[in-house]
């Protein structure tokens, strides 16, 4: 009987080898997949066992911190003042609704997730893992000014420091209280609400830019060398663009006028002709350089950012402005199927203000460990040179004219020269529902702030009347 016993033992060996194989498969081979499984809350629980770093505003005020709950897990808290930054901060409720905003994009730092070697060393030395603190560039007072100015209207204000890309203000109205999301059901209720309070209009909305787009067209015109600020173009109205008549605002007639005058008075027909003369390819190229067509390089979750550009409604995606179906004359004046975010328009004016160099927009200024040492300083980073310094200078002068004597006078500041451009996208001409805009920067000579302001669905509202005064207040606060 010994031979079958031996074979039986052989079978047991095979069975046990299968057990060891399955154990290796679960614990090593497929372990990463299992840890990423959406049903697996263990990595989130591990993170909740770590004291998460705090988030602070530029002035040091607290925007988010963590306290220990009865299950020895840390829970995120947002002090009352943090509500004004709801969209930027996002939230961190890993075990229930997940994470968003800076809480998500800076999670590695906040959760103290170091590289492998560092964590093994600190494991051995018995140090408890703690998260690092995130210090932002955000300015709470200017943010409050922006929110107060928007009031209960829907809209957005973005303000950037042109030379560094530091984001000072990013307001999106309406907002929400991140502390409220801790309660169950609140997230679902807010996400179904008609006015979409969870939606960050500054980075996600697709607004029609209207005449603010003429800044991009003017940059392309001057930088290509085909035009100068003094180039003369006829401003008669209407003209035929892509087979359809195009009128100036209020059908105003202009004779042969310079580009400077055409920007000051926002003459549609002139800019449409300029773009048609430049051609689709060149306009498309400059748009791309300004950042259209791709997600902004902001330290913010991709899921909460949309690129700007010509939106093909049928295919539900962006198409390049040099596509054959695009009416480039109307793209030039911010009509067609253009969809832009306030952040994109703020980036355009910040680039002009910075002598033609586009900087990466950045929320975070530095990451500080629990002992107060700076673990990482986020240096200003150049994204791309978009236009020459000379073009930028000429365009600045043209934009300064807009605020001095054109459509943007309401943005003028006492003793500080402002450059800017208004926009009024007519969404429903019959009911005169508009999307008013103002984009600009100040001071003209050494810009410290570039800004984009827009509001949704304002009946009869014009950029110069509705948006420009908001920009003025926010710039005033930031230049104090």
């Amino acid at each position: 009987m010994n031979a079958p016993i031996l074979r039986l033992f052989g079978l047991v060996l095979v069975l046990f080898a299968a057990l060891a194989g399955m154990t290796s498969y679960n614990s090593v081979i497929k372990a990463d997949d299992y840890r990423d499984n959406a049903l697996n809350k263990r990595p989130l629980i591990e993170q909740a066992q770590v004291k998460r770093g705090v988030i602070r505003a530029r002035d040091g005020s607290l925007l988010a911190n963590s306290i220990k709950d009865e299950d020895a897990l840390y829970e995120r808290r947002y002090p009352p003042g943090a509500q004004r930054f709801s969209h930027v901060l996002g939230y961190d409720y890993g075990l229930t609704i997940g994470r968003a905003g800076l809480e998500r994009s800076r999670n590695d730092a906040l959760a103290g997730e170091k590289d492998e070697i560092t964590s093994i060393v600190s494991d051995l030395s018995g140090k408890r893992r703690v998260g690092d603190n995130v210090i932002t560039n955000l300015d709470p007072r200017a943010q409050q000014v922006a929110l107060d100015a928007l009031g209960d209207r829907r809209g957005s204000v973005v303000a950037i420091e042109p030379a560094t890309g530091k984001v000072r203000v990013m307001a999106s109205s309406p907002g929400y209280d991140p502390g409220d999301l801790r309660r169950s059901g609140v997230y679902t209720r807010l996400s179904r609400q008609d006015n979409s309070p969870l939606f960050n209009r500054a980075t996600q909305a697709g607004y029609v830019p209207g005449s603010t787009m003429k800044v991009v067209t003017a940059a392309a015109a001057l930088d290509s060398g085909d035009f100068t600020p003094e180039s003369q173009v006829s401003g008669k109205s209407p003209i035929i663009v892509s087979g359809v008549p195009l009128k100036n605002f209020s059908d105003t007639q202009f004779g042969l006028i310079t580009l400077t005058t055409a920007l000051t008075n926002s003459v549609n027909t002139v800019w449409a002709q300029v773009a048609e003369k430049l051609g689709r390819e060149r306009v498309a190229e400059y748009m791309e350089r300004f950042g259209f067509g791709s997600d902004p390089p902001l330290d913010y979750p991709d899921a909460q950012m949309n690129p700007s550009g010509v939106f093909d409604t049928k295919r539900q995606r962006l198409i390049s402005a040099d596509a054959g179906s695009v009416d480039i004359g109307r793209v030039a004046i911010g009509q067609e199927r253009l969809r832009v975010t306030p952040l994109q328009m703020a980036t355009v004016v910040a680039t002009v203000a910075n002598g033609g160099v586009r900087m990466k927009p950045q929320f975070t200024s530095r990451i500080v460990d629990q002992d107060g040492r700076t673990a990482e300083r986020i240096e200003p980073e150049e994204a791309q040179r978009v236009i020459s310094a000379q073009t930028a200078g000429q365009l600045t002068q043209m934009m300064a004219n807009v605020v001095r004597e054109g459509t943007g006078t309401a943005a003028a500041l006492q003793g500080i020269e402002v450059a800017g451009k208004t926009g009024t996208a007519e969404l429903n001409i019959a009911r005169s529902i508009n999307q008013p805009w103002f984009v600009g920067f100040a001071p003209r000579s050494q810009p410290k702030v570039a800004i984009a302001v827009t509001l949704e669905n304002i009946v009869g509202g014009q950029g110069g009347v509705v948006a420009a005064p908001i920009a003025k207040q926010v710039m005033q606060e930031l230049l104090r």
Partner: protein
Amino acid sequence: MSARNRELFALIPASLLLTAGFAAVFIQRENLLNDLSLTYGAIFLALCLAAHLVLRMTLPDADPYIFPLVAVLACFGLVMLYRLDEEFAREQAQWFVVGLIFFTATIVVLRRDHRVLERYRYIIAFGGILLLLLPRLGSPVNGAYLSFSMGPISFQPAELAKIAIVIFLASYLRDTRQVLVIGARRVAGITFPPLKHLGPLLAVWGTAMALLFVIQDLGSSLMFFGGFLALVYVATNRISFVLIGLGLFALGARVLYAIRPTIESRVDAWLHPFDPEIYEREIGGSYQMAQSIFSQADGGFFGQGFGQAIIQLGDNPPILPAAHTDFIYAVITDELGLMGAVAVLLVYLLIVERGFKTAMLATDSFSKLLATGLTAVLALQVFVIVGGVTKLIPLTGVTLPFISYGGSSIVANFILLALLMLVSDRARRESAA
């Protein structure tokens, strides 16, 4: 060196392992080295020494490695249980004492000649089946009738029944193995046992099937039936008998699968543990299965260390249910990693090897078959539960021998161990002579 002296020396590292394990849990928990771990180690060593003395006096020639290997498993179990809940470890330690009493009693009663068991084979078989039917008096747990409660004590009769059935089969097959082989006929290329003697075997198959339907637990049925097939194979050396048996079992399982929703949901949970719909099911869902896998995924090569596995938060329902019983292997993998888990499997494999070795050394057929059967059910039990926890086969609730928390399991496995030692003592003495 004599067998018993070898055993004695082997017990020392087992006790040190326990001491080290407790020390690790203490360090993890309180960040200090408590001399309590030495006390636990000393108590454990004392218990082992007591059992060793019993063996020394009664079975001086029995296999010297089996008992120390079991001590290693027990120590793994105690440390794990202590880390989960001190109360579990304390109760488990008490069960070890009870188990050792049964171990000693079994040896003392059968020390003259364990073959007296053959005389009582029908009583033992009947008693075993009766034991299995007991839980039907109560209510099912997770759809299976596995445990029986008497006052505060609840026990799982399947643990004891597996021994009774092995004793019966070993004895029965010793008588009939020759006729089974000689009378066999080949029909259509398959060798069938003679019908006359097939009767009792079919009765065993019928009983296993009936049990499957009565207790409705695939795991213990698989264990019984696997033990049965192993014995039939070793007794007759006919692989065809095994294949016929397997086919019949598969048929029975298929029928049960079709009529019992609990079995079907177990299979669903096994095939698609990460399907959100199955995961969310209140009853018979794959939550446990998925958590077991997630827990193992946390372990990696070397594990997270004692006390690091996420099992329960505060007073909330546990994240990994039944961590001290069915899923203790998942906790071991989580905290000790692949290395620790494979080490545990290796210890079982060594015990199995010693068990089969004992069977091969034994000189009479009954002893051979008894040792084979006992070893095979032990190996199968490990396979069924570890296979279930690791998603190799559908999950069914049997204990991990000597490691899982549970009185009936400890007691039954100590009796199993005693029988194995009895066979070994006689076999080694006779083969040496």
